[in-house]
């Protein structure tokens, strides 16, 4: 696509950015969520927008997208006042969105997804799709984002990363001058991220204006030209990225001096429980012995010690999540065996839960929570059988209630939320805490965590790390799967690296090294 016309349109004289937020005010039911926020996104710039959940990022986006209207202040695009009433207006103004949860239609082809709202027709007013034009134009867009798929491929056949690229191709197709990316990397492997970043930079150099929202501060600092920091609906900082450090950013977002992002990992001692003496190398709670499943994993063997926090690193699609699902009995495996504290682990998830296995999946919405159900119901779900009495498994409501309250405190769930409130209404961080609480309720022997902090703000992350450590200190084994190598290095005692369904590297806490871990994840192990 040729962007010169856009650049030509742009009044050369005034240096006003393409998009300008000016003293934007917005409140819901009397609660101010935006208080006089002002900033701009310049041509050929990538502006990073960071802030904790509830800081007002999503509200800003909805204003830009026309889903909401500001109470006060104004939006300007190319110097003209911009008052969108719906997503259509936004598109017309050349603003495109790339959302965290992908908005593609898996039952349609790539090409159809790209041009869903403006199909090329055989003639003006003739409601007949010009398939040939559709295909060629789609192919052109795919070339621009570096995807080598036939435009006719059904989207359901694409992995998450490539779907993300299709989303961007969609934005290009809509001739957008401003692209807003909201947490675009949450479902991407690090390699896919690199690809995305390359594309984003390239778009910037073509003179597009990009607004980049993410919790992955590392990415933000690497990618963006300017940063805007929000807290409680106010702009608490902005400027060129070079003026920011990771720590400064964090303390701005949280509003207090966070002396560390990862809690101190102290050797488990002072807890009173009997396993407390178990060192990372002590008796293994979980033994995985040469398990294989054709096409998924091969000859996987490892031990998880009592009180140990074991990290599993690797690219998306290395077989990490699949491993977890196999361990939890959701997917089958052909050969090998798994032992939980010495005894063979078999049967349905239900059976394994009874044996003390717990699993926090990577998909909070689909597999973690009943979004419409209340906080209490979600917290109690796993613990129900334990709290029911025969005959007829009557429920012990007092027991359940006390357990729920206990868990709420344990996971530091925000005090505002009432037990009866639907989890849908909670922030990502609090939702994740509910899932965690649900599992901690049963005092698991082994806890499997798949991307436990994805899309969660810094404060909540820290608390989740603490919970993980506390559990380990009580003698449980914790298995953490994460795409953020720093995270694993921050909280784990040991890290395994997977590639193509095999373990290609193992690192102890004392010889953690980002480069070598990444290397092991990318190509044959050097560990």
């Amino acid at each position, binding site marked *: 696509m040729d962007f010169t016309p856009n650049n030509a349109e742009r009044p050369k004289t005034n240096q006003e950015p393409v998009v300008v937020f000016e003293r934007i005010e917005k409140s819901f039911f009397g609660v101010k969520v935006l208080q006089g926020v002002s900033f701009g996104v310049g041509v050929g710039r990538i502006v990073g927008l960071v802030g904790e959940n509830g800081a007002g990022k999503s509200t800003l986006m909805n204003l830009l997208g026309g889903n909401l209207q500001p109470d006060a202040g104004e939006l300007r695009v190319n110097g003209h006042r911009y008052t969108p009433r719906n997503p259509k207006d936004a598109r017309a103004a050349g603003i495109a969105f790339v959302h965290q949860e992908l908005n593609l239609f898996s039952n349609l082809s790539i090409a159809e997804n790209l041009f869903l709202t403006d199909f090329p027709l055989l003639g003006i007013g003739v409601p007949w799709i010009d398939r040939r034009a559709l295909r060629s134009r789609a192919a052109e867009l795919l070339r621009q984002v570096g995807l080598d798929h036939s435009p006719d491929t059904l989207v359901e056949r694409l992995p998450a990363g490539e779907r993300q690229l299709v989303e961007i191709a969609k934005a290009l197709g809509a001739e957008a001058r401003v692209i807003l990316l909201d947490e675009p990397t949450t479902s991407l492997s690090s390699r896919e991220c690199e690809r995305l970043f390359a594309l984003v930079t390239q778009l910037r150099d073509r003179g597009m204006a990009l607004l980049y929202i993410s919790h992955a501060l590392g990415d933000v600092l690497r990618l963006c030209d300017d940063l805007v920091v929000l807290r409680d609906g106010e702009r608490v900082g902005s400027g060129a990225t070079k003026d920011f450090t990771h720590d400064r950013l964090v303390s701005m977002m949280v509003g207090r001096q966070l002396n560390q992002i990862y809690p101190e990992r102290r050797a488990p001692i002072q807890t009173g429980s009997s396993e407390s003496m178990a060192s990372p190398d002590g008796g293994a709670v979980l033994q995985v012995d040469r398990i294989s499943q054709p096409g998924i994993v091969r000859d996987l063997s490892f031990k998880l010690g009592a009180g140990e926090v074991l990290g599993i690193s690797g690219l998306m699609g290395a077989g990490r999540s699949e491993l977890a699902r196999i361990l939890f009995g959701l997917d089958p495996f052909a050969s090998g065996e798994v032992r939980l504290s010495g005894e063979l682990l078999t049967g349905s*998830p239900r059976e394994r839960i009874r044996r003390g296995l717990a699993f926090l999946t990577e998909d909070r919405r689909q*597999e973690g929570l*009943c979004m419409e159900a209340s906080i209490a119901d979600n917290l109690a*779900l796993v613990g129900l059988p334990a709290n*029911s009495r025969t005959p*007829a498994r009557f*429920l012990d409501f007092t027991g359940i209630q006390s357990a729920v309250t206990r868990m709420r405190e344990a996971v530091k769930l925000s005090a505002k939320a009432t037990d009866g409130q639907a989890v849908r209404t909670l922030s990502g961080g609090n939702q994740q805490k509910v899932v965690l609480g649900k599992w901690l309720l049963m005092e698991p022997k082994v806890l499997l965590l798949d991307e436990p902090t994805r899309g969660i703000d810094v404060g909540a992350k820290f608390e989740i790390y603490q919970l993980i450590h506390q559990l380990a200190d009580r003698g449980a084994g914790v298995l953490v799967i994460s795409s953020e190598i720093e995270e694993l290095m921050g909280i784990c005692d040991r890290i395994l690296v997977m590639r193509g369904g095999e373990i290609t590297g193992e690192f102890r806490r004392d010889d953690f090294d980002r480069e070598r871990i990444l290397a092991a994840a990318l190509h044959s192990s050097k560990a």
Partner: protein
Amino acid sequence: MSRIIGSEFFVLFLCLIAFAAFAPFTPGFVSTGNFENLLTACLPLLVLATGQTMVLITGGIDLSVTAIIGLSSVVGALVMGGEQGWLGGSPMAMPVAVAGMLATGALVGLFNGACIAWLRMPAFMVTLTTTMFFSGLAVWLAKKVVNAESIYHLPPAFLALGAQAWMALALAVFATFVAHVLLARTLLGRWLYAVGHNPRASLISGVPVAGVTVGAYVLSGIFAAMAAILLTARLETGSPNHGKALLLDVIGAAVIGGTSLFGGKGKVLWTVYGVLFLSLISNGLNLLNLSDFLITIIKGVVILVAALLDVWRTRFVRGS
């Protein structure tokens, strides 16, 4: 105001309003006799709708209840029927027959549940086809076994269930109460809601999703069988035709009560109100001596209004 609209007694208020509206204009509406009619008339519907509620809560639907009624009615009559009944005359006739009827319901429910939970077939289609099959089977059974369309001469002990209003009432209320306790106070109950909310999350949280789903349909089957007992006793006849007209009312009643077709939301109590409301309306219209097509139209309008009110009040409650 918002308390009334918001409260779960809303539909009960509607009932009172309907009652007040009918009372002055409807001859014979306010009278002990009519109230007894009203009560006895709504019992089969009540039991059916209660069973259906449990299925709806899991996000499913059971269209086969009417077929179950027909089938178990015939089965029961075949067991205890006077002339050619298998146990005709023997004192064991009634208990065995009742057991047989309940078993029939449970089995059909089991079949439905198995197809839906284990073979992952859509509930709507499964129960649609089983409806066709089992009601056909009921007719065929009666024909082949006793060469009749329906079976008479049932033991008096059984007929008492219909003759004595209070017995029928006791049975229905008991069934409803059991369902209520099951949903509100037992593990299975909570699991039903969980499955309705999100089957995948439930499975991962250790809920035996397939088992629970099957359970829901078996229960629905058993409750349908109970309705069959009520109808058979009331009409003193085992017939494949019993309850055929009830299907849409059953779902209508549950939904009017506030149970969601998408699962996770619903209560026995609400269904009770829904049933009461529908029965009040049809009873009143009946006494008003309106022509039958007018009654049909009004019934449709009532369902519509109830649904609209529900939408409106959820908005209202959200708003305030």
